[in-house]
């Protein structure tokens, strides 16, 4: 295998880890609570802007920007849950879709109004530049995002499967009335889920900002991948989203390199649809 091809695959894996990272929050909300959050991409965008503001004001890298983004976005998650989601969940499915879509536009154009349409960027070497491993170029910022993706996936998985908080959240997701009869307050569980999901999304945004451009519409570019990752991984399966993210990243990179960049989306989505035809529940989803 040529060294370039290895570089393509490694690049694809790192890209896939990033896809998994910014999809994890969506898995939680969409996969478990059955709410399609169209504002997800814009949550990522907000995380990026938080990282940018922290860097502009304090000259601090993601070490400060990422926790800050988690904090800001988790708070926003709770506010959004109580201010919007709790009410529209009672309405028809269409109200949920349009409600979160409206939220997406509100966030996008608020940022647009405040920061303008300019493309922003963090300095290239904020996370230690690029290094060589046996002739392979590894970008520290992407590696950091990849490692964090693994940790977040592991953390969320443990939370949902090994803790009582996780069991309560799952119970509410499964049957909110029954959970209430067992003494679990659905409202607080849902709010916590939103805080965790939005916080993880903010974290993803802050890390992606170290190697991507920042612009109010960046959520449009990234959002669609998150939806595909979650459905390929299987609704509600956090490890599934990681696997799906990695698979999409590698398939995209390989097809762009071997066949041509124009065809990579066609390849990815054809395989995606074909896969769902055989296995509609996704990679690790339950039937």
């Amino acid at each position: 295998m040529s060294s370039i091809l290895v570089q393509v695959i490694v690049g694809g894996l790192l890209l896939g880890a990033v896809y998994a990272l910014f999809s994890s929050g969506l898995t939680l909300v969409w996969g478990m609570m059955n709410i399609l959050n169209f504002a997800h991409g814009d949550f990522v965008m907000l995380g990026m802007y938080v990282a940018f503001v922290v860097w502009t004001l304090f000259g601090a890298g993601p070490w400060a920007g990422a926790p800050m983004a988690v904090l800001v976005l988790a708070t926003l998650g709770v506010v959004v849950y109580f201010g919007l989601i709790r009410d529209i969940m009672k309405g028809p499915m269409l109200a949920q879709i349009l409600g979160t879509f409206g939220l997406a536009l509100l966030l996008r154009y608020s940022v647009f109004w405040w920061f303008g349409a300019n493309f922003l960027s963090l300095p290239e070497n904020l996370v230690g530049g690029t290094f060589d491993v046996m002739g392979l170029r590894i970008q520290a910022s992407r590696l950091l995002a990849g490692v964090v993706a693994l940790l977040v996936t592991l953390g969320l998985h443990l939370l949902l499967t090994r803790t009582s908080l996780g069991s309560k959240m799952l119970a509410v997701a499964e049957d909110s009335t029954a959970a209430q009869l067992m003494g679990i307050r659905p409202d607080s569980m849902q709010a916590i889920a939103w805080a965790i999901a939005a916080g993880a999304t903010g974290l993803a945004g802050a890390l992606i900002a170290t190697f991507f451009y920042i612009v109010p519409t960046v959520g449009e570019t990234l959002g669609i991948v998150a939806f595909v990752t979650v459905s390929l991984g299987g609704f509600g399966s956090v490890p599934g989203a990681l696997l799906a993210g990695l698979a999409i990243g590698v398939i995209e990179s390989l097809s762009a390199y071997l066949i041509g960049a124009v065809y990579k989306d066609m390849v990815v989505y054809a395989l995606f649809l074909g896969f769902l035809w055989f296995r509609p529940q996704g990679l690790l989803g339950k039937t």
Partner: protein
Amino acid sequence: MNFKNILGLLCAAAISVLPAGNAFSQEKTVKIGAVFPLSGGSASAGVHAKAAIEVAMDIINNAHPEFGNFPLAKNAGLAGLGGAKVEVVFADNQGSPATGQNQTLRLITEEKVVAITGAYQSGVTLTASAIAEKYGIPFVNGESVAANLTERGFKWFFRVTPVAADFAKIFYEFLADMKAAGAKTDNVAIVHDTTEYGTSVASVIASVFKERGQPIALDIAYTSNATDVQSQVLQLKEKKPDVAIMITYTPDAILYQKTMQSLDYKPPMIIADDSGYSDPSFIKAVGKISQGVFNRSSWSVGPPGSPTALIAEMYKKKTGDDLDDTAARAMQAFFVLCEAIDRAGSTEPAKIQAALRATDLKPDQLMMGYKGVKFDEKGQNVLAAGLIIQLQDGENYVAVWPKANAAKSPMLPFKGW
């Protein structure tokens, strides 16, 4: 009725009232429509074009004797219409051909504009100008370069900017000169997106180079607004072209430069086809890792006190950014349109169209480095011209070719970061 219901009603009322706010107009104004991408992926370019047109409005609507003989500057308003002021109604095409079409229709039928300018992306200009053609409203474009725009037999479409073929020839001649000076330029790669702009410019460059016996060695097409371009950069890295010609909008341009840096790949020469690489926010975001990128331009800031220097100063004061080539070309088109309306002495579309056909502006009446403005029967400015600029220090482009217009000599190879 609880608080929420009232709030809901108020919101609904506000939504229905909002658009009506723009409807009233003043006496003695000439209403012109401007369709630009003010939101969406190309909003940065659209917002800068809007600011440039607003500077032009200031120059036209207020007395600016310091501009000397620059058309429309000396007195306030349009002299040919008794000092009427120019009013511009901006519409957001969101970078979408369908929205561009709808907004143009709205400008013509609801806002009753007498002429239209815009719409940045060639693909949007294509649909927007078709509506203007149908309604018999002059459409003056300053910044879309896809060849087919003036090949449709339209009677109401005028294009001030040089087109892809002009720039392709400039690129070819520039590379021939660089080769004569000892640089390697035989192996040329083109990287382009698959928008109307990307595909048409790439194919024009490929055919111009082929006609002259130098076929393009590598053609990399990709879908715009990419989430990742590593594979494309690695393809370049493997094939090692002498020259990479980049035809991309801003987001992808930024991503390409970031990715080249992270994969430690420097093509010996990068030539950008304007657009993304000219966006001031591109320079701010990745200028420092793009030192030595060549670009095409028709805009250069002249000596202090000249109209171009005054315009650059006004624009910088208004926006905080340096005027870029794309916004400057949009601004030039707006001046050409207003000069024609002034000469027509009328707001009747047919008279404006006739005046546009008779346009004959000399280089000293222009802000751009064109040899003049004169339209052929297809509506194309036959005197449009351009030059090669280079981002030598990562902050400002300087003119480097042809020698007659050069402020500095070309720096080779691509330095990067």
